[in-house]
């Protein structure tokens, strides 16, 4: 058997066997079940799937997806190709690149491997689209999707090879790839020309729906349609609504696929150098993604150019807090917060007359953002035991009690998260003072401001303690440090983890809320005072529970041995 086919086959087989053995463990079996149910509910149980598929297969979607494809691929040419398209594993670099294999064989292996992802993508989309629009048999739709994804993959690989050639050969490389460059430049000019000519239709669109309808009309008319034509050929079989439509579309699409294959296989790039560089880049990205440092990845690790000093005198647990604060400062990626911020801004605009009342808009957005941080923040910032459990041998050798270690680790995530939320509440308070129509009377406003720090500190401490508790008590159920698991059972683990997380918080809050409300009601004060007192009492009680939990976790951490983690 060909060595590369053997490698691919045995790797896949062993991966499957490993996954199968893992699923024999009850916890992975349960996680697999939950993950499977989750996927099933997404793919099969969605009541609006037919309507969604009809929308996805509509003509505007076709135009927009074609444009998206152009933008994605053009991005490779304008901003640089994703070099990880060429990446191999470190073991493959060591063994295959030193072996007597041709460049064509290595590129072929890369293409063959990519087919796994292509086929899975095609399969998922066949399920999503299978009841959409007029009848088209799923095998035909699947073949169309396969051609589309394969062509995209080939293009990505080709772009990476071409750009590698540029880097290796300088101007000679540019000359060799002049046709690729010229074709994309021409396509870009045609699409841009269409958009510029019809820009008034986009600028003066009445709403978001009209904007996209106009955009698709522009893209489907001359001159943009000429530029989009080769891409439209690739997507046409996927969007075909009848068998005759599909039959007309499939041959040109296959021709495009063959042209891409020919282009990739003949590109004279310094493949090996580029692939080794790409492999190192991919290893770094995997490391970053595994530790959830970023959705994207910074080009280079941040330098440790500045620090805040740590005195050598004082409680040693502060050193752990200091260490984690430095870690946070050097790893936090602001882009992580772009999504939540966008949601908060959208919500703020929606409830404040489309942003007409600027003060109300800022206030609502700030409070919404603080709320999102409260709910999801513990999953965005993980510089606590979820990161340090992989340094357990080092932690356990330190002359610090396990309880103090857990306390410092929890504080490392809870304090910055609470500080950020309090800051946004203060921003909201200041903004609402300037708003023409405040939703609260002044006393209620002040009561909320006073109680917010108590609520933020206690809730964040409780949430982070629960997360850290799961890391200490059920390390196999948590993604720790750089460890990452994939597959359906990992998805199930995440779902179960989320459920356990909020269930535990709910249980923990029951008594504090009850006692807080009863004690505040007993004072027979105004509503703002009652709310403030109830919040503060509940926060104090929740903090006491959290402290007890931290001490318990300290004893548990003392018993955990590195091999278990």
């Amino acid at each position, binding site marked *: 058997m060909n060595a590369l086919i053997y490698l691919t086959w045995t790797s896949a087989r062993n991966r499957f066997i490993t996954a199968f053995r893992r699923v024999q463990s009850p916890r992975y079996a349960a996680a697999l079940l939950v993950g499977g149910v989750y996927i099933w509910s997404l793919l099969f149980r969605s009541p609006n799937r037919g309507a969604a598929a009809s929308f996805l297969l509509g003509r505007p979607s076709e135009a927009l997806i074609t444009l998206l494809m152009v933008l994605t691929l053009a991005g490779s040419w304008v901003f640089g190709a994703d070099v990880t398209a060429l990446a191999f594993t470190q073991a493959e670099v060591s063994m295959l690149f030193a072996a007597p294999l041709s460049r064509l064989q290595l590129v072929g292996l890369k293409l063959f491997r990519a087919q796994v992802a292509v086929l899975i993508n095609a399969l998922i989309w066949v399920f999503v689209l299978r009841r959409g629009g007029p009848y088209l048999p799923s095998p035909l739709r699947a073949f169309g999707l396969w051609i589309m994804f394969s062509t995209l993959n080939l293009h990505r690989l080709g772009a990476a090879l071409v750009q590698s050639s540029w880097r290796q050969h300088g101007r000679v490389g540019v000359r060799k790839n002049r046709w690729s460059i010229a074709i994309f430049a021409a396509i870009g000019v045609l699409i841009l020309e269409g958009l510029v000519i019809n820009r008034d239709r986009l600028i003066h669109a009445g709403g978001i729906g009209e904007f996209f309808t106009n955009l698709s009309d522009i893209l489907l008319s001359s001159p943009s349609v000429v530029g989009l034509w080769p891409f439209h050929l690739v997507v046409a079989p996927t969007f075909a609504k009848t068998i005759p439509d599909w039959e007309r579309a499939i041959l040109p699409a296959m021709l495009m696929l063959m042209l891409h294959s020919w282009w990739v296989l003949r590109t004279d790039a310094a493949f090996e150098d580029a692939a080794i560089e790409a492999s190192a880049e991919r290893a770094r990205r995997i490391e970053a993604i595994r530790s959830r440092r970023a959705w994207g990845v910074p080009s280079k690790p941040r330098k*440790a150019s500045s620090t805040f000093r*740590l005195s050598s005198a004082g409680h*040693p647990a502060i050193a752990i807090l200091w*260490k984690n604060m430095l*870690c946070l400062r050097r790893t936090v990626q602001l882009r992580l917060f772009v999504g939540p911020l966008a949601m908060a801004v959208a919500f703020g605009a929606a409830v404040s007359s489309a942003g007409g009342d600027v003060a109300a808009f800022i206030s609502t957005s700030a409070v919404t953002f603080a709320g999102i941080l409260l709910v999801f923040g513990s999953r965005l910032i993980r510089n606590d035991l979820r990161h340090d459990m992989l340094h*357990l041998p080092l932690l356990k*050798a330190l002359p610090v009690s396990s309880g103090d270690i857990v306390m410092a680790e929890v504080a490392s995530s809870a304090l910055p998260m609470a500080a950020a939320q309090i800051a946004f509440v203060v921003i909201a308070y200041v903004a609402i003072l300037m708003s023409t129509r405040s939703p609260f009377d002044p006393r209620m406003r002040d009561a909320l401001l006073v109680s917010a720090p108590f609520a933020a500190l206690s809730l964040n401490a409780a949430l982070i303690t629960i997360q850290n508790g799961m890391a200490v008590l059920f390390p196999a159920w948590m993604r720790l440090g750089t460890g990452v698991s994939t597959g359906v059972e990992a998805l199930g683990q995440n779902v179960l983890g989320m459920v356990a997380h909020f269930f535990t918080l709910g249980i923990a809050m029951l008594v504090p809320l009850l006692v807080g409300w009863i004690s505040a009601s007993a004072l027979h004060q105004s509503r703002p005072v009652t709310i403030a007192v109830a919040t503060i009492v509940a926060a104090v009680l929740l903090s006491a529970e959290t402290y007890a939990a931290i001490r318990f976790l300290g004893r548990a951490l003392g018993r955990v*041995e590195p091999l278990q983690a």
Partner: protein
Amino acid sequence: MISAANLTKLYGDFTAVRGISFHVSPGEILGLVGPNGAGKTTTLRCLAGIISPTSGKIAVGGHDMHDDPIEAKRALAFIPDEPHLFDYLSVEEHLRFIARLYGVPDVDRRLPEMLNELELSDKRQSLPGELSRGMRQKLAIACGLLHDPSALLLDEPLTGLDPAGIRRMRETIVARAERGTAVILSSHLLNLVEELCTKLLVLRQGACVAFGTMDEIIAAHPELAGLSLEDVFLSLTSEGMEGAGA
């Protein structure tokens, strides 16, 4: 200074260390040798308080590791074969972190000395990811030595060091012992063990097959007289050899 009494560690049904006892006095260097899987690292991890023994007693500097782990750990340093470092602390920050944990009083004076001694001065702002394997090992060593431990546990400490680093590390171990530090050195480099160690503890399948000075071991096993340390080691750890501490 470092003592273990009837130390046993089980992982489920597997016995990693079975009932070993020894004592290392200030100034002594104990060589911990044995084939792969003999229980050397498990023993060192028990001594460092990283894992708890299933049974037996450990004391470091007169502090029982079970009853008074903080003080016992304050007295020792464990330098593992694979340097465990925090990804986002620079070289200097690692040392300041250790200084706070162990309450090193004159860190501003000691820090440059330590960086110079281990040739890390130029790398003081570098993160571990920017260091070579040898540099990271040097940083782990610096972290271990910064607080002047009275007990030093070294697990293959020369791994990754360059020749100059190896020589300096040897000198450091000897100098520390001369200043009264009790040292336990686990290594497969028998020439290093022979050169530095005043006592040997030979492990096989978790059990002690020999303990004492070389002379004491030979006295307990006269058939080994005249053999090199390598031959003695191979004889003691071979399958047919049944032994006990000298």
